[in-house]
């Protein structure tokens, strides 16, 4: 009996690696610490009522942001472990198996559990405020999306202490990811976690399309929307058309692994290449999903800090939409070497190169906006400028990779690794950091410390080039991705060592960002005006942070950059409510059900991961129960009384 339990535990928990035991201990300590603090300071009620059950888009956005930064830490630690392993030849810091697991979790976490929540954080916090709305179109669904994402991410992260991490790469191609070659729960974690958070992503896409099309302030035409809102709209369009392909690919692979079908096993008439095809039908649009909001944020930042309206607004909108359409016609460039033939490769090569045109339009428009502008070098502008340089290089090497015959040389080499890190860090992370710094005062009511931020910026940026420039060269010298070690005589040693130094500099930069946040919570410059950057769009007409109903009186929009127009005309008082204007505001009620639904999905997912079907069924039944109780829920909305609005606005000194 006892030995049975011991045997079970040694398979259930990941054992044998001192680093994992360290992680076990720290997870336990942090969890106990959180429980202790919450109980000691009687914060359970606050946590439940103010955060876990909230349907307020601003709070959901903040939770997305926190989750994204935590996942950035996790993915970053993975990256540093890999770079440590590769710093010197013949290294035994990690075993091959462990290295496989780490590059898999690094990729998956950075794309799906860091970049995605970071864009959703900005969507949630910014879009309703920018378009003069009081919440998103479906606030309850928004909370469901968040908790599905959150519990998907938790399920994925559980894998490295319980059961073992997935190890077939973030693309998880069969036949390697089939049960036969990859037994154990690791790959199931990947499939279930992505599936659960994917449902949330699709719902978010639908939510923001409806919000942007239907809930704009009176008078705001489509072509008067701020560019960040446009980027959210185009990214949402891509989300709802691209994610179903991933859902299907993962579902079929899951059936292969759990039920024993043969969609992707070639011996029984299946075709593993179809998974590759489906994965990239989603996978390529996915990278545009994360980069478009970054472009949108940069457009806002560049206009604000150049004190000019954005150059070429119409062409900016057109290029956003064009990128989102072209993104569907390029996916085969991820597998030029599959051998689909010259005609297929030519088509997809040319389509891929065409993406450079609308992207180039955007870069030139940012430059022209800055031209003869009065540029202020605040932190968001630092990151915006860094994006232009970093993304330009990533884009240019992307065009090199798009040349199908040449790609036979670069394919899956470190050249590719350097390319996509330059676009995803230089294009996505830099842009979203710019957005984070820019909108931080709006979220929390204080600015982040400039000095520490500049340190973080330079460490991260210098580290970024030191890390990835050598990798371009390594690619040309024949170093392939996903090799866990290399022999000494290849001539790769110096460049790998330099690259590792760069990675550590980036890690240091991240620590400075953490220090900056901690320091600024206490000492950061408070934003009392609501408009700390002298910005242009409607969110800055509100106090920081905005009251939960956002706008006491909905603004009338007559121009693009409405807030700037009002400031120029000295009419900012127009947006301040008078007591007679105030009417009760219709708002959604908080609900604990989205959280419970997330927990239920987590339980179901966990059951499927270990093929413990009773648990899976219990989880799914709980999901069904939450759906049914929601269907019979009436009176989930209420009116904020005029007195409360009056009181809040008066306390903010805005009642005239």
């Amino acid at each position, binding site marked *: 009996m006892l030995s049975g339990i011991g045997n079970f535990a040694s398979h259930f928990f990941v054992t044998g690696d001192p680093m994992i035991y360290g992680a076990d201990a720290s997870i336990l300590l942090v969890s106990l610490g959180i429980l202790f603090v919450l109980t000691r300071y009687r914060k359970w009620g606050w946590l439940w009522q103010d955060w876990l059950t909230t349907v307020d888009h601003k709070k959901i956005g903040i939770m997305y942001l926190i989750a994204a930064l935590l996942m950035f830490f996790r993915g970053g630690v993975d990256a540093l472990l890999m770079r440590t392993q590769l710093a010197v030849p013949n290294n035994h810091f990690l075993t091959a198996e462990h290295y496989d697991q780490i590059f898999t979790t690094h990729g998956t976490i950075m794309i799906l559990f860091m970049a995605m929540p970071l864009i959703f954080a900005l969507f949630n916090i910014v879009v309703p405020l920018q378009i003069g709305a009081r919440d998103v*179109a479906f606030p309850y669904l928004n909370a469901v999306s968040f908790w599905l994402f959150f519990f998907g991410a938790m399920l994925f992260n559980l894998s490295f202490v319980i059961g073992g991490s997935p190890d077939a790469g973030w693309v998880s191609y069969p036949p390697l990811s089939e049960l036969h070659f990859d037994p154990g729960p690791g790959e199931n974690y990947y499939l279930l976690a992505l599936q659960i958070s994917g449902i949330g992503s699709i719902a978010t896409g639908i939510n923001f399309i409806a919000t942007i099309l239907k809930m704009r302030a009176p008078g705001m035409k489509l072509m008067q929307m701020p560019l960040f809102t446009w980027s959210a709209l185009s990214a949402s369009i891509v989300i709802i058309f691209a994610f179903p392909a991933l859902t299907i690919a993962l579902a079929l692979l899951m059936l292969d692994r759990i039920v024993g079908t043969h969609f992707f096993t070639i011996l029984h008439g299946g075709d593993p*290449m179809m998974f590759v095809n*489906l994965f990239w039908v989603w996978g390529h649009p996915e990278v545009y999903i994360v980069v478009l909001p970054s472009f949108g944020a940069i457009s806002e930042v560049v206009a604000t800090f150049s004190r000019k309206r954005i150059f070429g607004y119409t062409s900016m909108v057109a290029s956003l939409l064009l990128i989102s359409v072209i993104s569907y016609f390029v996916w085969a460039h991820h597998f030029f070497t599959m051998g689909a033939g010259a005609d297929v490769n030519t088509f997809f090569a040319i389509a891929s190169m065409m993406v450079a045109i609308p992207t180039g339009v955007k870069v030139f428009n940012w430059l022209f906006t800055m031209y003869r502008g009065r540029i202020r070098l605040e932190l968001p502008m630092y990151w915006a400028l860094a994006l232009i340089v970093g993304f330009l290089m990533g884009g240019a090497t992307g065009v090199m990779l798009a040349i199908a015959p040449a790609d036979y040389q670069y394919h899956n080499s470190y050249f590719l690794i350097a390319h996509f890190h330059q676009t995803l860090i230089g294009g996505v992370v830099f842009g979203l950091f710019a957005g984070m710094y820019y909108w931080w005062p709006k979220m929390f009511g204080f600015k982040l410390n400039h000095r520490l931020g500049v340190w973080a910026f330079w460490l991260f940026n210098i580290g970024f080039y030191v890390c990835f420039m050598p990798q371009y060269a390594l690619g040309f010298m024949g170093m392939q991705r996903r090799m866990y070690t290399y022999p000494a005589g290849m001539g790769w040693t110096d460049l790998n060592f330099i690259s590792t130094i760069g990675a550590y500099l980036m890690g240091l930069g991240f620590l400075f960002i953490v220090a900056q946040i901690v320091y600024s919570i206490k000492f950061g410059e408070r934003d009392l005006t609501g408009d700390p950057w002298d910005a242009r769009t409607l969110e800055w007409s509100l106090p920081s942070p905005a009251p939960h109903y956002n706008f006491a009186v909905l603004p009338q929009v007559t121009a693009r950059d409405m807030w700037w127009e009002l400031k120029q005309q000295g009419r900012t008082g127009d947006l301040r409510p008078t007591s007679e204007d105030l009417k009760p505001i219709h708002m959604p009620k908080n609900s604990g059900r989205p959280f419970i639904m997330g927990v239920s999905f987590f339980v179901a997912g966990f059951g499927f991961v270990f093929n413990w079907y009773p648990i899976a069924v219990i989880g799914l039944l709980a999901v069904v129960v939450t759906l049914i109780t929601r269907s019979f829920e009436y009176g989930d909305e209420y009116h904020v009384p005029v007195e409360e609005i009056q009181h809040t606005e008066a306390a903010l000194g805005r009642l005239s």
Partner: protein
Amino acid sequence: MALDHKSQPAASHGHHSPRLYIIGYISSIVLTAIAFGLALSHTMHFGPLLVVLMILAGLQIIVQLFFFMHVTESDGPPYHSIALVLGLFFTFAVAIMSVWIMSFGSQVS
């Protein structure tokens, strides 16, 4: 929408009788069952089977759009028509190009 439209009396949306949903639900299940039955029973040759399955899939799309998504109703600008056209465009583009890409298999083997 949830906040401001609902405070006005809903004119054109909402208030469908359950009958519509039940018909839709049953017909979608029937279509799925036929497709599964045909695929499992091996009574048809591959070519004709493929055509029949495609037709069933097309019918399924129509059922979903008509009974559950109410494509025939709207207020405000016809965003849903644009979305539908875009969706069809992407669907066909992705499907046809996937067939094109994957047809290399017949040349290889």
